[in-house]
Structure formats: C-alpha cells, structure tokens
C-alpha cells in the first residue's frame, strides 16, 4: 500500500473502489494505485496505476472503475498512466489487508508459498489441489485437518 500525504481526499475517494474479484479489499489496499496528482491549473487529475497480473481480466475494469468514481465527484478530466515499474508484488499487502482476506475465506500470500493457512480452522496443515484457481491470482487448496477447500492468494 502506498502512502502519499498529498491529495488525501482523492486517495480516500479511490479507497472506496472494491477489487472486482475480491470485493473485501479495495484498489488502494491492493497496491494498484501508485500515485495521484491533481493539477488545479489544468483542472486535471493524473492517476498512475500498475497491473497486478498481466492476464488479469480486471485490468481494463480497474481503469473504468477509477474514471467512474472520479467522475461521480465531478472530476472529468482524468488521465490514467499504467506503469510496470516498480513491479507489483503481494509484498505490498499490509497485515491488515491480509487479515481481511483470511476473514473472507481467502488464505493470504506467504513468502515462497511456504505456509498456507486454512481460513476456517486456521491450521497450516494444508495441501495444494491445483496451482491454478478461479482467478489468475489464486490457487486451490484443501485443509488436511478440517477438509475445508479454499482459495490461496498466490505470492507474486
């Protein structure tokens, strides 16, 4: 998550946009929105975003949602810049965001995919069913203790 003191009202506004696939977290928490700049002299806002997964079907949707949200508050002259540097990483998710994911039933990413916790019984005795899941960012797991099947947010 980026912290940028300037333009706090815009950061707050964009924090209201939920991730289309995982609505429990928003685009700011996800780390998609990197930079916001307001240019009052040009009556313009520049938003810099970075893609999460190159093949994420929500990639285009992110831009539409940002434009829509800003337009709803009267900001119509908006430029969105997509940048690849620095490369998006799940390391940017805060502990608070990871906690939200776990509560939602999605096991949050851990370094090297080593410890995967069951969102239901919290056991770490779990096994991968398939490295690929319902979205490009998730793998399918099952818990060896309580048999719960669940999604794991891949470490990127």
């Amino acid at each position, binding site marked *: 998550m980026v912290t940028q003191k300037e333009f706090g009202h815009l950061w707050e506004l964009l924090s209201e946009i939920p991730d289309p696939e995982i609505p429990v977290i928003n685009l700011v928490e996800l780390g998609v929105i990197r930079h916001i700049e307001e240019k009052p002299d040009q009556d313009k806002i520049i938003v810099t975003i970075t893609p999460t997964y190159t*093949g994420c079907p929500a*990639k285009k949707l992110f831009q539409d949602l940002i434009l829509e949200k800003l337009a709803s508050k009267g900001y119509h002259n908006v430029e969105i810049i997509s940048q690849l*540097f620095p*490369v998006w990483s799940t390391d940017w998710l805060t502990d608070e965001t990871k906690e939200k994911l776990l509560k939602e039933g999605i096991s949050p990413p851990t370094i090297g995919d080593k410890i995967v916790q069951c969102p239901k019984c919290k056991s770490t005795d779990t096994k991968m069913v*398939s490295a*690929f899941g319902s979205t*490009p960012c998730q793998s399918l797991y099952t818990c060896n203790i309580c048999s719960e099947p669940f999604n794991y947010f891949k470490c990127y």
Partner: protein
Amino acid sequence: MKITIENKDAMSVIRLADTSVILAQRLAEMCSNGLTLEEDIALSNISLDLFGRADELYKIAARIEGNKFTPDEYVFHRNEREYYNIKLVEQPNHDFAWVIARQLLHDIYAKELFTQLSTSSNHEVAGLSQKVLKEIKYSYMHSHDWTNRLGLGTAESNERMQRALDHLMKYVDELFNFDELDKKFIPDPEKLKAVWFSEVDKILGESNLKRNAVAPPSMRDFREGFHSEHMGHLLSIMQFLPRAYPDAKW
C-alpha cells in the same frame, strides 16, 4: 490495413509478443476440453497469462513505433507471413502429451529468455520481464510436473509423451539461429541455448524420456515470417470475428 514494424527493437518485442499470443490461442482451444476440471482451469489460466503478457508486449512495441497501431491491430490484422512467433508454439493440440511437451519446451525457453531480459536496458522490457517470470514459475511447475507424471506413468503415457517430444523437437533448431536483432536484444544468446539444452535434458532424464536426434523440417526461419501448415488454420479461427465484423465491440 497494412501493419508495418519499422524499429528493430520493436521487431524483437513483436517476436516475443507473437510467440505469447499464439501459444495463448492454442491453450485457449483447451478451455472446456481439459481432462479434469482442475486441468481445464490450469490450462485456461496459463492461456490468460500469455494473452496478458502478449498485450503488454504489443503495447511496448506500439510505443516504440509511435503508437501507429494498437495491440488488437497487431493481432487481428496481420497475415501468416507477417507473424514472427516460433513454430513450436503453433503446433496443434494433437493430444494431451503434445500440449504438455510443447509447454515444457516453451517454458524452459521463456524462463531463461525473460531472466536475461529482466536486466534489459529497455526499462519497460525489464519491468515486464520481472513480472512475467513470476507467472512462468507457475506454468513451468505445471509442465514439469506433468512431464514427470506422463514419462513415469504407464507404458502408454511414456510412449505418447516421447512421440510428442520427437515431433516438437523438430521445431527447436530455429530457436537458436540467432540473427543480428537477437544478438542486440538478448543479453547472452549462447547462454540461452546452453541453459535450454541442459534443463531439457535434466527433466527428460528424470522422467524416463529422451531427447532423440530429429531432422528439422526444411522450412525457413520464423524470423522471416515462415510457418508450418498449422499457422494459417489457427489464424483463421483467431482472426475471423474482427475481420468479418470490423466494428464489433465486446
């Protein structure tokens, strides 16, 4: 519409993009045809990653070219001879062994190639390469795992995997016929070749499979836009809709 590619770096990026999009299309053909639900999802996910990778690569190429064309125009409005993908990835999904063998040979190539490009002097290429390496890791895990399982499975699965490899190996030679563009764009082409052979041999060795000597087909190089017979059929399906209905929107 006549699509032109003027800049040499743009051409190098287009080659990568074409290889990604053609393999993505082949894997998309497996969507709803996977042997299990998990496998169907896996192949579709890998396809999606490759489409995404291609999209970002075409955007980089387009920017170098001054945004004369969009990614969609590069994909849907070039003919067979204007495509520069490696022939390996256009080979059909003859059976599941072909899908896995093709993926394994590609993933090992892509892994070393993008590792090298992650230090490219083009910052966009470097950034994207670092990103796609994370995706290649998952794809490679999948193709490696299935190669082990098919090679060490039954006599039938071993035989079919070997047959797939023997066919696909014919299209490997051209990967390493580096031209001037490659030598400028890829940091260490000879290392790419060495790493590819040693890694392929290691995985085939552990899977009771062999890299047999095969004669490459008498076909000219993908760098000049030459393809196997399968390419035209693939494009005819992939490009049909935007060509028949040019203003169609999703």
